[in-house]
């Protein structure tokens, strides 16, 4: 009996450990050799002129500030890079937040001095960490850059990013511990469900939850109920609409589409928006398949079901490591169905080179996706002051993670600092002034594509970035080529 129980324990333990190891397999170890090589090349190209850019402090960014004073009717424009000036008409009355409902109204309006801790919960281990963990490096890199260049007067920024493994049940614990550690604001929490599950707490506490790294529609729709929460990615419905209209141009009215989506908030929001947009564009969704978020197996059955319908195109919304798994399995499925060669549109969260090229073993060739940032690895962008600064600082820090993913973190960091700067310039840096600055700001980050801007206007416009450029991956050149021009039809 004892022996059999002992054997049972060992078997059970081994099974449990096996599961843990599978979960940990998605971790990002050293998958960036190629990236590093490319980054170095780009950096060599970008070395000249880096100093000038650094002197610009925001690395070529352009800003338009909307003064929060009630009387102000004109916008103040400051052009730090000396390149572009954007002038927007300021609203007659800038949006303000009501702190009377806060658990501690005094704390929400208290001046922030000395060090400001900026917290975040991100997947640093587990399946999605492959794609997302370099975001942390980019974010921390910009905050260090801001500190080194004294971008904020008398305030030092201290990032505090903890791992929630993309598991929404872990995010409240992480956020609670960060609040207890003295975090003043949150920025760049990754994952729709992860952000949703903490926004009640953060809004009750009146702690800004800035630049959620998800394109869920809630961030733009729920401004009145959740004023302290803002998003940063282009909303998924906009991305889905842009894909549907591009697809219509490629496969024509009446074309058929198969959908492959991850079975979580992100996949469902995206999928629902695409179905609506497809119907509006005269496309027919003929088959829908899903994959569980933690499933790392090749989606053989799902692609078999899609292939059976022979759709003209596939819209794929997988997560992290599932992106290359999907592409590789699609290549196998196409090999078994010689007469079928669908166009593939993949969510831009799969657009990292790591996912579309390195891990996909070349099967990403011809895949369509989208972006709103300059590709730091594209030699055509080497002269951009923003890219130069980014590459320079990235190399100086000796980072190794995926450069594109890191650039997203950098942009979130840059936008956060811009918001803080605007709040500081409004008089007092406080949690209240920070969220008011975030919702009354037009700003062009240094890595933004032409035509792309962060623009928020109180409750009237609760979405920050709303312009996307459709692009297509070319394996031979290891580069994306743009399809058409940036679609800014959703900008308000």
């Amino acid at each position, binding site marked *: 009996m004892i022996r059999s129980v002992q054997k049972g324990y060992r078997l059970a333990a081994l099974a449990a*450990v096996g599961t843990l190891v599978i979960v*940990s397999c998605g971790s990002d170890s050293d998958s960036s050799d190629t990236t590093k090589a490319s980054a170095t090349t780009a950096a060599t190209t970008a070395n000249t002129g880096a100093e000038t850019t650094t002197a610009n402090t925001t690395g070529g960014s352009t800003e338009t500030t909307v003064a929060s004073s009630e009387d102000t009717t004109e916008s103040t424009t400051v052009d730090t890079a000396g390149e572009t000036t954007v002038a927007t008409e300021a609203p007659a009355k800038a949006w303000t937040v009501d702190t009377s409902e806060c658990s501690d109204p005094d704390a929400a309006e208290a001046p922030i001095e000395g060090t400001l801790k900026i917290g975040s919960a991100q997947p640093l281990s587990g399946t999605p960490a492959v794609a997302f963990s370099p975001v942390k490096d980019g974010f921390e890199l910009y905050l260090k850059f801001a500190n080194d260049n004294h971008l904020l007067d008398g305030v030092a920024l201290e990032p505090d990013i903890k791992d929630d493994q993309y598991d929404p*049940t872990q995010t409240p*614990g992480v956020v*609670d*511990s960060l609040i207890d550690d003295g975090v003043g604001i949150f920025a760049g929490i990754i994952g729709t469900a992860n952000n949703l599950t903490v926004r*009640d707490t953060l809004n009750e506490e009146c702690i800004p939850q800035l630049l959620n790294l998800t394109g869920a529609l809630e961030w733009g729709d729920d401004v009145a109920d959740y004023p302290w929460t803002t998003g940063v990615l282009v909303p998924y419905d906009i991305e889905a609409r842009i894909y549907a209209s591009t697809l219509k141009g490629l496969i024509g009215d009446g074309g058929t589409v198969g959908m492959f989506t991850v079975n979580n908030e992100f996949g469902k929001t995206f999928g629902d928006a695409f179905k609506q947009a497809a119907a509006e564009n005269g496309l027919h969704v003929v088959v829908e398949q899903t994959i569980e978020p*933690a499933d790392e197996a090749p989606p053989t059955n799902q692609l078999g079901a899609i292939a059976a319908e022979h759709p003209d195109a596939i819209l794929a919304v997988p997560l992290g490591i599932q992106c290359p798994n999907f592409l590789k399995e699609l290549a196998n499925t196409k090999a078994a169905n010689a007469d079928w060669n669908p166009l593939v549109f993949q969510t831009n969260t799969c657009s990292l080179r790591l996912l579309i090229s390195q891990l996909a073993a070349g099967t990403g060739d011809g895949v369509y996706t989208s972006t709103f940032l300059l590709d730091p690895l594209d030699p055509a962008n080497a002269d951009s002051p923003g890219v130069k600064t980014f590459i320079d600082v990235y190399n100086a820090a000796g980072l190794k993670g995926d450069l594109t993913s890191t650039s997203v973190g950098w942009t979130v960091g840059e936008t956060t600092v811009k918001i803080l700067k605007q709040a500081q310039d409004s008089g007092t840096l406080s949690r209240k002034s920070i969220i008011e600055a975030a919702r009354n700001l037009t700003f062009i980050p240094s890595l933004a594509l032409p035509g792309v801007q962060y623009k928020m206007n109180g409750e009237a416009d609760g979405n920050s970035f709303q312009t996307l450029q459709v692009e297509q991956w070319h394996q031979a050149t290891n580069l994306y080529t743009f399809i058409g021009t940036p679609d800014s039809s959703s900008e308000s």
Partner: protein
Amino acid sequence: MPTRPQAIREASPLHWAIRVVAAGSIAIVAIYLASSATPSTLGNVTEACTLAIAAVGLNLLYGFNGQISIGHSVFAGLAAFTAGYTVNAWEWNPYVSLGVALALCFLLGVVLGLPALRLKGPYLALVTLAVAFVWPTIAAKFLDQKVKASTLKGTRLKPLTWTGLSVKGKDARLDRAIFLYWTAIVILLLAYVIVRNLRKSRIGRALVAIRDNETAAAVMGVNLKLTKTITFGISAVIAGASGWITAARLATMDENTFTILTSIRYLLALFLGGAATLVGPVVGAFAYFFVDDYLKDHAPDWDWLPGPLSKGPVAPFLLGVLVIAFVFVAPFGLVGFVKDQVRKVVVIAPRPLRKAPSSADQEQHEQAGPDRAGLETGEGRT
């Protein structure tokens, strides 16, 4: 020459004193935490309690009755969704929703217990595994069709007025954490007492008899069908209580809140603490939760780790290695390991056999029914 361990007689004043000191220490720590800890620490303890409650329920089923289940996350999910839906859509009192959720869990537990009448070991595990896989699909359909949203709101349990804890204001976050903390502790305590009393009763002996030898148990008059299905039901109720706390703690839930990984965490907590011991699952749940938490917080910064492990997301890997090492060192879990070590120094001597009955007593006893005294003393100390 090895020294003979000191014997302490069960239920002697010294044994009671040890028990009181142990229980008192735990109570002091619990009260101290509630009065001084930060909301995040209280939240962590609440989460560990949630895991412990489910593990205690699973222990009743697996540890004492020998029925394995990898589907206990489904009961937690059912209770959490029932609470979340009834509180938000029908504006039920959360405590009423608890009662209804637990009743549903009991029914589902009994139904899922039916295959256990035919299946054992890995085959039963497979059936429950299948149920765990089916749950997310059912939950997703429910969200689509009934909630008309991709997430279900939690119950956001607020402190009851008589507790004196604030619902709004500066201390609202702390007070809510304190309230959830005590709620979880009370439910854990209740679950523990239920399982302990069952274990120490005639039913408990029947459970162990079934686990060790079904045929022998049946021959001795144990109703296999009833005992096994009811045990499954009670175990499901306890797991459901754990899910109810999760619904109270989380602002939103979806179909991925209770997955197969949740069930595996329950099993890990059980095995690490020691299955078939009363406190094992509680100890295991706390050990697992806080080691995991510590590794996630600190392991990525350990640059002394060799090669690719250095400065990376190594927490799950390290946890796995620790579990393997631990199971080889302590195959009966933490509690089993500690008991083994303590036994070298001190043993709890069972209560002596009752005095042999006189012939008159014997006659009277035989008229009353089977020999209970023999069963009492022959109780297996697992």
